[in-house]
Protein backbone atom coordinates (compact mmCIF):
# COMPACT_ATOMS: atom_id res chain seq x y z
CA UNK A 1 0.00 0.00 0.00
CA UNK A 2 1.31 3.42 -0.96
CA UNK A 3 0.49 5.60 2.09
CA UNK A 4 2.14 8.66 0.52
CA UNK A 5 -0.23 8.30 -2.40
CA UNK A 6 -3.22 7.98 -0.06
CA UNK A 7 -2.23 11.23 1.64
CA UNK A 8 -1.87 12.82 -1.81
CA UNK A 9 -5.43 11.72 -2.63
CA UNK A 10 -6.73 13.43 0.52
CA UNK A 11 -4.94 16.66 -0.43
CA UNK A 12 -6.37 16.47 -3.96
CA UNK A 13 -9.84 15.92 -2.48
CA UNK A 14 -9.48 19.02 -0.30
CA UNK A 15 -8.57 21.01 -3.41
CA UNK A 16 -11.50 19.61 -5.41
CA UNK A 17 -14.16 20.09 -2.74
CA UNK A 18 -12.78 23.16 -0.98
CA UNK A 19 -14.90 24.38 1.93
CA UNK A 20 -17.59 21.81 1.18
CA UNK A 21 -15.36 19.07 2.63
CA UNK A 22 -15.64 18.96 6.41
CA UNK A 23 -13.92 15.62 7.07
CA UNK A 24 -12.82 12.52 5.22
CA UNK A 25 -11.34 9.17 6.17
CA UNK A 26 -10.08 6.05 4.45
CA UNK A 27 -10.23 3.03 6.75
CA UNK A 28 -9.97 -0.74 6.74
CA UNK A 29 -13.38 -2.40 6.78
CA UNK A 30 -12.16 -5.25 8.97
CA UNK A 31 -11.40 -3.13 12.04
CA UNK A 32 -12.39 0.46 11.21
CA UNK A 33 -8.79 1.70 11.58
CA UNK A 34 -8.08 4.94 9.71
CA UNK A 35 -5.31 4.89 7.07
CA UNK A 36 -5.50 8.50 5.93
CA UNK A 37 -7.83 11.43 6.34
CA UNK A 38 -8.62 15.05 7.01
CA UNK A 39 -10.23 16.10 10.30
CA UNK A 40 -10.10 12.39 11.01
CA UNK A 41 -12.72 11.05 13.43
CA UNK A 42 -12.05 7.46 14.51
CA UNK A 43 -15.54 7.21 16.04
CA UNK A 44 -17.09 8.18 12.70
CA UNK A 45 -15.14 5.48 10.84
CA UNK A 46 -16.36 2.86 13.33
CA UNK A 47 -19.92 4.17 13.05
CA UNK A 48 -19.89 4.13 9.24
CA UNK A 49 -18.48 0.62 9.27
CA UNK A 50 -21.38 -0.42 11.50
CA UNK A 51 -23.96 1.37 9.36
CA UNK A 52 -22.64 -0.29 6.18
CA UNK A 53 -22.89 -3.72 7.82
CA UNK A 54 -26.34 -3.19 9.24
CA UNK A 55 -27.74 -1.95 5.92
CA UNK A 56 -26.17 -4.82 3.98
CA UNK A 57 -27.25 -7.41 6.54
CA UNK A 58 -30.84 -6.15 6.35
CA UNK A 59 -30.74 -6.25 2.53
CA UNK A 60 -29.12 -9.70 2.56
CA UNK A 61 -31.87 -11.01 4.86
CA UNK A 62 -34.45 -10.19 2.17
CA UNK A 63 -34.01 -10.79 -1.54
CA UNK A 64 -33.13 -7.14 -2.12
CA UNK A 65 -29.98 -6.13 -4.06
CA UNK A 66 -27.01 -5.34 -1.78
CA UNK A 67 -25.24 -1.99 -1.48
CA UNK A 68 -23.19 -1.15 -4.53
CA UNK A 69 -21.20 2.08 -4.81
CA UNK A 70 -22.31 4.04 -1.75
CA UNK A 71 -24.85 5.07 0.84
CA UNK A 72 -25.56 8.72 1.54
CA UNK A 73 -27.20 10.28 4.60
CA UNK A 74 -28.64 13.78 4.86
CA UNK A 75 -27.94 14.73 8.47
CA UNK A 76 -29.21 17.42 10.78
CA UNK A 77 -27.20 20.65 10.89
CA UNK A 78 -26.84 20.80 7.10
CA UNK A 79 -24.43 17.89 6.72
CA UNK A 80 -24.23 15.14 4.15
CA UNK A 81 -22.21 12.06 4.83
CA UNK A 82 -21.48 9.27 2.38
CA UNK A 83 -19.43 6.10 2.53
CA UNK A 84 -17.95 4.16 -0.38
CA UNK A 85 -16.83 0.53 -0.10
CA UNK A 86 -13.60 -0.13 -2.02
CA UNK A 87 -12.81 -3.82 -1.54
CA UNK A 88 -11.33 -4.30 1.94
CA UNK A 89 -11.28 -0.54 2.49
CA UNK A 90 -13.96 2.08 2.92
CA UNK A 91 -13.80 5.78 2.25
CA UNK A 92 -16.14 8.26 3.93
CA UNK A 93 -16.82 11.97 3.50
CA UNK A 94 -18.65 14.55 5.57
CA UNK A 95 -19.84 17.51 3.51
CA UNK A 96 -21.43 20.87 4.11
CA UNK A 97 -24.76 20.38 2.29
CA UNK A 98 -24.99 24.08 1.41
CA UNK A 99 -21.55 24.23 -0.19
CA UNK A 100 -21.37 20.81 -1.87
CA UNK A 101 -22.51 20.31 -5.45
CA UNK A 102 -23.77 16.75 -5.10
CA UNK A 103 -23.82 16.09 -8.85
CA UNK A 104 -20.17 17.14 -9.14
CA UNK A 105 -19.23 15.14 -6.05
CA UNK A 106 -20.93 11.88 -7.08
CA UNK A 107 -20.26 12.01 -10.81
CA UNK A 108 -16.78 13.53 -10.98
CA UNK A 109 -14.92 13.62 -7.65
CA UNK A 110 -16.04 10.23 -6.28
CA UNK A 111 -15.21 8.07 -9.35
CA UNK A 112 -11.81 9.78 -9.68
CA UNK A 113 -11.02 9.33 -5.97
CA UNK A 114 -12.16 5.69 -5.88
CA UNK A 115 -9.86 4.84 -8.82
CA UNK A 116 -6.95 6.61 -7.12
CA UNK A 117 -7.59 4.79 -3.82
CA UNK A 118 -7.76 1.42 -5.63
CA UNK A 119 -4.37 2.14 -7.24
CA UNK A 120 -2.83 3.33 -3.96
CA UNK A 121 -3.92 0.29 -1.91
CA UNK A 122 -2.83 -2.12 -4.65
CA UNK A 123 0.63 -0.52 -4.91
Amino acid sequence: MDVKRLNGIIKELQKDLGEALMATDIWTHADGQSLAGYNTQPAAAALFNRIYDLINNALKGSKFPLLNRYYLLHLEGGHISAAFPIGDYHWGILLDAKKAQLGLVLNVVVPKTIEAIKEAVAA
Partner: protein
Amino acid sequence: MVPLAEILMEGFRIKDEKGSVEVKEEEMNVKKINAIVKEVTEDLGDALITTDIWTVADGTVIAGLNSSPKAAALMNQVGRELIDALTGSKFPSLEDYYILDLQDGKMMLCLLFGDYQWGMLLDTEKVQLGLLLSVVAPKAIAGFNEAVSG
Protein backbone atom coordinates in the same frame (compact mmCIF):
# COMPACT_ATOMS: atom_id res chain seq x y z
CA MET B 1 -75.19 6.34 45.33
CA VAL B 2 -74.64 6.59 41.53
CA PRO B 3 -76.34 3.75 39.63
CA LEU B 4 -74.02 1.27 37.86
CA ALA B 5 -75.66 1.99 34.48
CA GLU B 6 -74.83 5.69 34.84
CA ILE B 7 -71.17 4.92 35.65
CA LEU B 8 -70.97 2.64 32.60
CA MET B 9 -72.60 5.25 30.34
CA GLU B 10 -70.11 7.89 31.55
CA GLY B 11 -67.25 5.45 30.85
CA PHE B 12 -68.51 4.84 27.29
CA ARG B 13 -68.91 8.60 26.75
CA ILE B 14 -65.28 9.27 27.81
CA LYS B 15 -64.05 6.39 25.64
CA ASP B 16 -65.97 7.69 22.62
CA GLU B 17 -64.55 11.19 23.11
CA LYS B 18 -60.98 9.84 23.34
CA GLY B 19 -61.54 7.74 20.21
CA SER B 20 -62.72 10.70 18.17
CA VAL B 21 -59.69 12.78 19.24
CA GLU B 22 -57.30 9.99 18.17
CA VAL B 23 -58.97 9.69 14.77
CA LYS B 24 -58.73 13.46 14.26
CA GLU B 25 -55.01 13.48 15.13
CA GLU B 26 -54.27 10.77 12.58
CA GLU B 27 -56.48 12.26 9.89
CA MET B 28 -54.76 12.83 6.58
CA ASN B 29 -55.90 13.82 3.16
CA VAL B 30 -55.61 10.56 1.18
CA LYS B 31 -56.66 12.29 -2.02
CA LYS B 32 -53.76 14.76 -1.64
CA ILE B 33 -51.34 11.92 -0.88
CA ASN B 34 -52.39 10.01 -4.00
CA ALA B 35 -52.09 13.24 -6.01
CA ILE B 36 -48.51 13.93 -4.86
CA VAL B 37 -47.53 10.29 -5.49
CA LYS B 38 -48.97 10.62 -9.01
CA GLU B 39 -47.11 13.89 -9.58
CA VAL B 40 -43.79 12.40 -8.43
CA THR B 41 -44.42 9.35 -10.61
CA GLU B 42 -44.94 11.60 -13.63
CA ASP B 43 -41.87 13.73 -12.83
CA LEU B 44 -39.59 10.70 -12.56
CA GLY B 45 -41.08 8.77 -15.49
CA ASP B 46 -39.22 5.56 -16.37
CA ALA B 47 -36.61 6.22 -13.69
CA LEU B 48 -39.11 5.27 -10.97
CA ILE B 49 -39.47 1.50 -10.54
CA THR B 50 -41.63 1.38 -7.41
CA THR B 51 -42.64 3.78 -4.65
CA ASP B 52 -44.31 3.29 -1.30
CA ILE B 53 -45.29 5.45 1.65
CA TRP B 54 -45.54 3.54 4.92
CA THR B 55 -46.10 4.10 8.61
CA VAL B 56 -42.95 3.77 10.72
CA ALA B 57 -44.91 2.16 13.59
CA ASP B 58 -45.73 -1.03 11.66
CA GLY B 59 -44.41 -0.67 8.09
CA THR B 60 -47.96 -0.67 6.64
CA VAL B 61 -48.15 0.86 3.16
CA ILE B 62 -50.60 3.79 2.90
CA ALA B 63 -49.97 4.78 -0.74
CA GLY B 64 -47.73 3.83 -3.63
CA LEU B 65 -47.08 2.74 -7.17
CA ASN B 66 -46.20 -0.88 -8.00
CA SER B 67 -46.46 -1.29 -4.25
CA SER B 68 -44.25 -3.81 -2.51
CA PRO B 69 -45.22 -4.33 1.15
CA LYS B 70 -42.15 -6.56 1.63
CA ALA B 71 -39.80 -3.82 0.38
CA ALA B 72 -41.58 -1.26 2.59
CA ALA B 73 -41.12 -3.49 5.63
CA LEU B 74 -37.43 -3.95 4.78
CA MET B 75 -36.83 -0.24 4.26
CA ASN B 76 -38.68 0.50 7.47
CA GLN B 77 -36.26 -1.83 9.26
CA VAL B 78 -33.22 -0.24 7.55
CA GLY B 79 -34.47 3.25 8.45
CA ARG B 80 -35.05 2.28 12.07
CA GLU B 81 -31.59 0.72 12.40
CA LEU B 82 -29.96 3.76 10.77
CA ILE B 83 -31.75 6.13 13.13
CA ASP B 84 -30.82 3.96 16.14
CA ALA B 85 -27.15 3.74 15.09
CA LEU B 86 -26.88 7.52 14.71
CA THR B 87 -28.82 8.24 17.90
CA GLY B 88 -26.47 6.02 19.89
CA SER B 89 -23.42 7.92 18.57
CA LYS B 90 -22.40 11.56 18.94
CA PHE B 91 -23.13 12.08 15.25
CA PRO B 92 -26.00 14.30 14.03
CA SER B 93 -29.32 12.50 13.44
CA LEU B 94 -30.83 11.83 10.05
CA GLU B 95 -32.66 14.87 8.72
CA ASP B 96 -34.96 14.32 5.78
CA TYR B 97 -33.55 11.62 3.50
CA TYR B 98 -31.00 8.90 2.82
CA ILE B 99 -29.91 7.17 -0.37
CA LEU B 100 -28.71 3.62 -0.93
CA ASP B 101 -26.91 2.89 -4.20
CA LEU B 102 -27.76 -0.78 -4.83
CA GLN B 103 -26.50 -3.54 -7.08
CA ASP B 104 -28.35 -4.34 -10.34
CA GLY B 105 -28.48 -0.64 -11.30
CA LYS B 106 -30.96 0.35 -8.60
CA MET B 107 -31.07 3.17 -6.10
CA MET B 108 -33.32 3.67 -3.08
CA LEU B 109 -34.22 7.16 -1.94
CA CYS B 110 -36.02 7.26 1.38
CA LEU B 111 -37.71 10.46 2.58
CA LEU B 112 -38.29 10.76 6.31
CA PHE B 113 -41.38 12.34 7.89
CA GLY B 114 -41.28 11.29 11.52
CA ASP B 115 -44.19 8.82 11.72
CA TYR B 116 -44.06 8.10 7.97
CA GLN B 117 -41.39 7.28 5.38
CA TRP B 118 -41.54 7.45 1.61
CA GLY B 119 -39.29 5.09 -0.36
CA MET B 120 -38.56 5.35 -4.07
CA LEU B 121 -36.77 2.55 -5.90
CA LEU B 122 -35.08 4.10 -8.91
CA ASP B 123 -33.18 3.04 -12.02
CA THR B 124 -29.68 4.54 -11.62
CA GLU B 125 -29.19 4.68 -15.40
CA LYS B 126 -32.33 6.73 -15.91
CA VAL B 127 -32.50 8.96 -12.83
CA GLN B 128 -31.10 12.50 -12.84
CA LEU B 129 -29.77 12.94 -9.31
CA GLY B 130 -29.88 16.76 -9.51
CA LEU B 131 -33.52 16.71 -10.59
CA LEU B 132 -34.34 14.10 -7.94
CA LEU B 133 -32.78 15.93 -4.99
CA SER B 134 -33.35 19.54 -6.02
CA VAL B 135 -36.80 19.36 -7.59
CA VAL B 136 -38.68 16.11 -6.98
CA ALA B 137 -37.71 15.41 -3.35
CA PRO B 138 -38.53 18.94 -2.06
CA LYS B 139 -41.85 18.82 -3.96
CA ALA B 140 -42.64 15.37 -2.50
CA ILE B 141 -41.75 16.52 1.03
CA ALA B 142 -43.89 19.67 0.78
CA GLY B 143 -46.79 17.78 -0.82
CA PHE B 144 -46.76 15.00 1.74
CA ASN B 145 -46.55 17.39 4.70
CA GLU B 146 -49.49 19.32 3.31
CA ALA B 147 -51.52 16.12 2.89
CA VAL B 148 -50.77 14.94 6.43
CA SER B 149 -51.77 18.26 7.93
CA GLY B 150 -55.20 17.75 6.35
